[in-house]
């Protein structure tokens, strides 16, 4: 499989490294020679220096035999033109463009349906805002993803020492929690394990589980998280994501304040927002935070472009009495540190972008993909084809590789949380949890069997 990535920025670089890890053929195009050098020095990918929208460069990168083109430069326009040019040269290539400008939001589906040169428009910012909303709604969750159109929630939670679940075996969980949950994985000391029934939970574990949406509230309660409902929110950083989030919160009737450093941006925000209060100042200024009543804030969301500022402001806000903090972070290397310094809820536009892109890169009928925050595993939602290996036998006998687990089945819109005896029927949608090492095998299983041809 050959993938061409236009733009060696944050997302481009990361996708390239991810694909290279999975032994895929990757070509990255970027105008910036330095970025190209960094890429070819560190990754096993081909790097082409030039404009991604130039037909000459695209040809040189081998667009004709590429399966997928990803246009993820910082410029929406470049991305669009790159897709258009690629379509002219090689119509069979699947083309994905990242478009971030909000005015395009309503047209994503239109692009998909009517513009032949773009197969899919992705905007990670929409996903990030969605995750933040989920975090605000589900107290204590560090990871929430939707499957089966939101009917199933895949949630990651830290187990607090005071929780009634601390110290019990997995097979005893049904006695403690009413709606059934399926624990998919536990992260203990940065090590991800897929636990068996005798596995004993302990305080400090990060527990990933799947549950039906309607049962989520009592389940979360069983984790005994101390959380207050979110009515007042402070957003630090009024960039694209901050603005989007504020607009969503405004609609939901949540009091919102935005702290933004740039005066110019502040006046733009003030003109755009209906109810949100726009404060001009530095989010790390303690006096300003006190003035704006940080103690009464149920949630503080730090979304500036500076990772370190986000971390520090979140810590500061927490220390000054804010209910909870949500931190925007792009550097994956920081993720493992976060629980240690007390930052639980983290969102990453880069990770969101990767999730969306992976969904299109994965073979088989994959409907959605979520990567866990530390990237040790993925959750895929896919359609079980008639010819697939997992169909027609009880799960305990199926040929799923070690390190993977079927955690949900959707049959005719009905959600089933499977046990070892469940059988997958053709046409079912299955949700599979898989460690990163076995992803390639899972892809094969999901694909049509060879003898079929």
């Amino acid at each position, binding site marked *: 499989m050959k993938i061409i990535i236009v733009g060696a920025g944050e997302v481009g670089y990361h996708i390239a490294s991810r694909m290279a890890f999975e032994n895929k053929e990757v070509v990255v195009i970027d105008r910036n020679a330095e970025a190209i050098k960094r890429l070819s020095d560190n990754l096993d990918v081909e790097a082409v220096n030039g404009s991604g929208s130039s037909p000459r460069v695209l040809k040189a990168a081998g667009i004709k035999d590429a399966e997928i083109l990803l246009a993820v430069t910082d410029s929406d326009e470049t991305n669009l033109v790159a897709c258009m040019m690629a379509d002219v040269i090689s119509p069979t290539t699947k083309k994905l463009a990242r478009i971030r400008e909000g005015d395009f939001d309503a047209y994503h589906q239109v692009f998909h349906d009517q513009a032949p040169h773009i197969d899919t428009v992705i905007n990670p910012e929409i996903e990030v805002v969605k995750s933040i909303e989920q975090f605000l709604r589900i107290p204590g969750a560090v990871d929430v993803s939707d499957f089966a159109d939101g009917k199933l929630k895949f949630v990651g939670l830290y187990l607090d020492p005071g929780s009634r679940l601390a110290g019990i075996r997995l097979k005893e969980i049904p006695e403690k929690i009413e709606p059934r949950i399926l624990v998919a994985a536990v992260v203990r000391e940065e090590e991800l394990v897929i636990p068996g029934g005798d596995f004993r939970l302990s305080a400090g574990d990060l527990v990933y589980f799947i549950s039906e949406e309607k049962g989520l509230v009592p389940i979360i309660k069983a984790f005994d998280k101390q959380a207050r409902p979110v009515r007042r929110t402070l957003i630090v950083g009024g960039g694209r994501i901050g603005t989007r989030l504020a607009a969503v919160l405004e609609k939901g009737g949540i009091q919102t304040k935005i702290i933004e450093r740039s005066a110019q941006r502040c006046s733009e925000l*003030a003109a755009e927002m209906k109810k949100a209060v*726009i404060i*001009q100042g530095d989010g790390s200024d303690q006096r300003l935070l006190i003035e*704006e009543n940080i103690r009464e804030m149920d949630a503080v969301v730090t979304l500036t472009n500076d990772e370190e500022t986000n971390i520090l402001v979140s810590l500061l806000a927490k220390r000054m009495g804010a209910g909870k903090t949500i931190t925007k972070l792009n550097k994956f290397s920081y993720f493992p540190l976060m629980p240690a310094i007390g930052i639980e809820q983290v969102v990453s536009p880069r990770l969101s972008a990767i999730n969306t892109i992976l969904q299109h890169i994965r073979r088989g009928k994959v409907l959605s993909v979520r990567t866990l925050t530390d990237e040790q595993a993925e959750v895929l939602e896919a359609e079980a084809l008639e010819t697939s290996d997992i169909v027609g036998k009880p799960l305990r006998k199926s040929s799923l590789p070690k390190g993977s687990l079927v955690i949900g089945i959707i049959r005719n819109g009905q959600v089933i949380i499977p046990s070892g005896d469940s059988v997958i029927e053709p046409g079912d949608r299955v949700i599979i949890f898989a460690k990163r090492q076995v992803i390639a095998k899972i892809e094969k299983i999901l694909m049509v069997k060879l003898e079929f041809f």
Partner: protein
Amino acid sequence: MRWAFVFQYTAILVFCLGLALVVPAGVGAFYADGSTRSLLMSAAIAVFFGTALFLIFRQPRTEYISQREGMAIVALGWTAIGFFGALPFYFSGFFPVFADAFFESVSGFTTTGASVLTDIEAVPRGLLFWRSLIQWLGGMGIIVLTIAILPFLGVGGFQLYKAEVPTPMPDKLKPRISDTAKLLWKVYVLFSVLEVILLLAGGMTVYDAVCHTFTTMPTGGFSTKGLSIAHYDSLYIDIVIMGFMVIAGINFFLHYQMLRARPLAYWRDPECRFYLLTLVVLILVVSFFINGQVYESLGESFRYGAFQVISILTTTGYATADYNQWSAVAQLIILTCMFFGGSAGSTGGGMKIMRIMLCVKFCYKELFNLVHPHSVSYVKIGGKPVSGAVISSVLGFLALYMGIFVLCSIVLASMGVDFVTSFSAVAASIGNIGPGLALVGPVGNYSEIPYFGKWLLSWCMLLGRLEIYTVIIFLVPEFWRK
């Protein structure tokens, strides 16, 4: 400053006024009431002066009118037609001094509706028709003034509509101002025709229906009856007139929208919404306070409360009840209404709802900024920010309005007029309402006001009608500097 140019335009207006005078002369001839002679005489004088001035000050055609010249044309033009329009009143002999005739005429053209007549029914029909017609013409003048001329001069609440406010107007009516004005005049005429028909259906005579329509649509308020609308004592007529007063107080752009099958335009427009809500709240409050005290039944309180509040808030000035008899709180609310006025872009006077709304929002913003000293916020109308320049112009207007109100009240009181009469007379004149409180209340009139007081109030009416800046600018030395 090309004065010749200013005079030329004024001459055209005077000439047209002369032509318009032929209409009431015809009415007078029809009823054979003896008013035709004075009306035709005035018509001849106006036509003669108009032609003469035009020929004397004839100018080569020019494309450009400066802001100063524009203001001078507006102020001088309105004064001149006030002067020539007063001639038939003066000649008729019903007005003993010229100040009275001028007062009546200016009160008509500015759609105020304040009168010095003590016995209206005694005045010949031709003359009363002229009195109503000048209000109707004044209303037309105001429409073109507010939508076209004042924004160009940089004054007036309507400038907001130019760029600042996203009114529910996807198509900007017509690109050319004169086309827009013609369109809105059609709306104005259409509503007038409608009102005449509805009043006829209520049993009014053709003459009365036309005269009352001529004074409802421009929110004027002259009546052909001494008792005003109370004369008819008909619930139907009350309701029809209330309806058209409310309509006349709404921005005419919105009527145009409505006629193009967008009935929600009224509700989508923030100013109109504020105006309607203000009306409803004030009506309920006033009805509550006069119930059981002046009127026995709730229905009666509501009927008279609603009529008076609408009449004063829209700055029309008709009456079906004497609110001088009401409790102090009801009277004070009526007085407050005098300052509010209609919407920007309507024929109503007063400070205009748009300005009140902006002022309230601005005050809230100031308080908000005290709580959040670092916040960045805008005064918004309909979700869109209003520029600081517009807000300071509005605040300046309100300050000038109140300042002039206070000053003129003091001057009037110094002529020996009593306390309540002086300030309410000034408020009713600047606001172009008509009736005030006490001596000049709904059943009284302005005949008792001293000679100089009438000149002062005439000036106040012009001031209020021409959005203050246009008139007051002549008192600024900088205006005269070369």
